[in-house]
């Protein structure tokens, strides 16, 4: 397009500038999204072919809503990058729990990811506070260099953690003594404390605390951030139970428990504002927008209906600006409520289902 600068560096600067604004209009969001789409269409062969199969190109796409979203499974098989993969500063990979292959997301530099994450974390988790002492229930970035969550937590601890912040878990697992000591100290100081990590790490920590008969009352202003969710359990039961244990074992009210929803394939995260209610809605900053679509037709569902989430993340300037998740949700108050995910459903008949077949194939 005439006059539009599609070089990667200039674009990433534009995205950084966009993130730095206070808010965004629909038209400003569209303009940025379309510039990124044109750049990716131009500079990524796999993505271009994918778009052309869908009959979409920068010529015909006029709004962020029309950018063909790339299914997250495509990150496993296609190289979705506008730069040579080996030149990327960092590659984040999915855990590869199903199907074996791991999805890859290439970051030429981490400048955009970091700016997006830090600005959003400050707004949604720090809530006006500059620093807080943190305990991290996840391995370090050095231990897991391809984990976007490890990097995310390193950013959180580095930018917002008070000097005594520490990791309470290593690659081998939870360090009970470390955890119990950290919680004892935190409770004794009277200073607010933050515990952050993967949902399953919390579940594990709770089990250990119960086994050891430990209960804590963390000081007022303390908070918790978990992410990742529960696999293979009913969400309704699991979330209520989970935040109930936060309260009984840590003394942190569910309203101070924030759940972060992020993905390796995104460069921006979503947060809720506490879990004192079931189905707390999630929302993101002004540089990410979400559509809820019928997964089979790809069309937006009517208001108030369930569908799968399609995110248009302007911070994804190098990979794919729009991605199609496998997460089921419903629109709610400017954001969405997560309801489940593909693969949670049971086989209907006596024909083997994809998940069971893959499970058996892996042996």
């Amino acid at each position, binding site marked *: 397009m005439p006059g539009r600068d599609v070089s990667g560096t200039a674009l990433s600067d534009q995205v950084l500038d966009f993130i730095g604004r206070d808010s965004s209009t629909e038209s400003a969001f569209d303009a940025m999204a379309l510039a990124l789409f044109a750049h990716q269409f131009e500079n990524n062969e796999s993505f271009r072919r994918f778009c052309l199969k869908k009959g979409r190109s920068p010529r015909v796409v006029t709004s962020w809503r029309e950018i063909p979203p790339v299914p997250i499974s495509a990150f496993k098989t*296609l190289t979705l990058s506008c730069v040579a993969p080996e030149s990327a500063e960092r590659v984040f990979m999915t855990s590869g729990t199903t199907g074996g292959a791991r999805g890859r997301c290439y970051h030429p530099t981490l400048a955009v990811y970091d700016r997006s994450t830090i600005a959003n974390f400050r707004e949604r988790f720090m809530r006006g506070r500059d620093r807080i002492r943190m305990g991290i229930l996840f391995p370090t970035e050095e231990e897991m260099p391809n984990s976007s969550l490890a990097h995310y937590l390193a950013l959180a601890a580095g930018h917002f953690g008070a000097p005594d912040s520490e990791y309470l878990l290593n690659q081998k697992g939870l360090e009970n003594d470390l955890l119990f000591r950290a919680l004892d100290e935190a409770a004794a100081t009277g200073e607010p404390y933050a515990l952050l990590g993967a949902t399953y790490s919390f579940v594990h920590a709770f089990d250990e605390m119960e086994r050891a008969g430990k209960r804590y009352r963390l000081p007022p202003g303390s908070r918790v951030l978990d992410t990742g969710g529960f696999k293979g359990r009913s969400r309704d039961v699991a979330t209520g139970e989970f935040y109930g244990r936060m309260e009984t074992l840590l003394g942190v009210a569910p309203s101070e428990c924030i759940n972060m929803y992020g993905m390796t394939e995104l460069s921006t995260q979503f947060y809720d504002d506490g879990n004192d209610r079931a189905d707390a809605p999630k929302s993101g900053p002004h540089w990410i927008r979400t559509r809820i679509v019928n997964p089979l037709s790809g069309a937006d569902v009517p208001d108030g209906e369930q569908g*799968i989430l399609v995110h248009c993340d302007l911070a994804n300037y190098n990979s794919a600006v729009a991605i199609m998740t496998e997460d089921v949700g419903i629109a709610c108050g400017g954001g969405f409520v997560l309801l489940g*995910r593909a693969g949670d459903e049971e086989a209907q*008949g*006596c024909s083997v*289902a994809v998940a*069971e*077949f893959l*499970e*058996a194939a892996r042996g």
Partner: protein
Amino acid sequence: MLGGGRRIPGGGEGVAAVAELAGHLPGLPAESVARETLRFSAWGRCAEVAAPVLSGDQLTALAAHVRRSRERFLAGLRTQEIVDILDRAVRTLLDRSDPRRRRAEELLPAVTGYDPETVRLGLTACLKTFRGAQLSAFVAEDFANPQMLDGFQPLRKGGYGRAFGPALIAHVWAGNVPGLPLWSLVSGLLVKSANIGKLPSAEPLMAGWFAGAVADIEPRLADCIGIVWWKGGDEVRQQALLDQAGLVLAYGGNATLERIRARVPVATRFLPFGHKLGFGMIAAAALDADKAAGVARRAALDIVRYDQHGCYSPHVFYVERGGAASPRVFASYLGGELAALSHRFPRRALDAEEAAGLAAARQEAEIRSAVSDSVEIAGDAEGAWRVVFADDDPGLAPAGANRTVKVAALDRLDDALPEIARHAPWLQTVGVAAAPEELFRLSALLGEAGASRVCALGEMTAPEAGWHHDGRFNLLDLVRIVEIERGAEAAAEDFAAYCD
């Protein structure tokens, strides 16, 4: 949450009728039975099912009751008498004016999600296999001399033999295809066993209606049938049943079957029926200009019936090159047929998670088609059906079902055999379109690879009466043969009053 039912995105809120009582509990006072309501909705209809929740004591009492009823009545019936009773019961259910049949046609679409026309035709096709003549075929298939079920019959090796079913058979059913429980329940009755079956939450009605129809004809036979329910994973109740049974038949996925197997007492026989993966093979000879369209139509029917959720349903069609219609043309015919059939038989309504799962399963092929010219995808905009055409890709795997099928073009059908054999534990039904010599040649290779049923296209979802389910015997696998040895008879001669 809807109990096993389908939440349809945007589905209308119909008016729920009076809850249908599920199960069949002879000997238990109705008012003593606790009920849990399962709610379903689809096709603008709602259904409420009041499923029975028995205590451990009630399960034990039910087992004692059906066992006693068997001793008093069923054990003394001749097989032909059982066939006659079942025949009359099945005929009432075949009659579309019968109240139970009307309830079935009304409720099962909401419960299973299958469209009303599929349910109606499916019920009739299934019930027809249990009429008298067909039941006799069941018996004759397994017993060269069916009188072995009624009394001692001479054996070829000498002596006499008689077949006895266990006093009580436990059935753990699964899935939402209406009528599947009837196969094992009818088999259990034919070998004169008392039966207690655990209903699947996805279709908790048909087995109870069947028992009710039997009760109208001969209550003493229905007294030998217990139909119960518990929420999947309720190991306490499950154990109460497993401990009572002389034989356990179970249906479901590998994980479910493994859990049950671990709970079955070691001396109790366990017959597991796992999930399966069907496919079709179409030889070049079946792709004549005037035949290809008909072949595609029959293949499409096999896909549409129960939306590929049956163990016999096809997920891949291997199509041989060299016929008048190329595999690619066949794939386009198949797409056309699926499009046409989607009007008369709309696909089962999917809830958001199922739709997301289906979309995810379909995406793999979609992504491959984006970067490779050897993969082509056809489907409608709404995602009601999907045909993936692939050149020289014999991969055999489910792709999400719900009318998602792969057409694989091969130079020779034999090229798929190594891949097919790799999946032996999943094999069962193969729909074949080929000339007679080729049918027999392929069948030998398919049998060697692990398949157990070769049928015509268009008949994959309707196995013949007396078929060998998973290659096994419906009745013979249930019984033990009691022998009177030749020597015993000879020795007895000495003790006869008329002995010289």
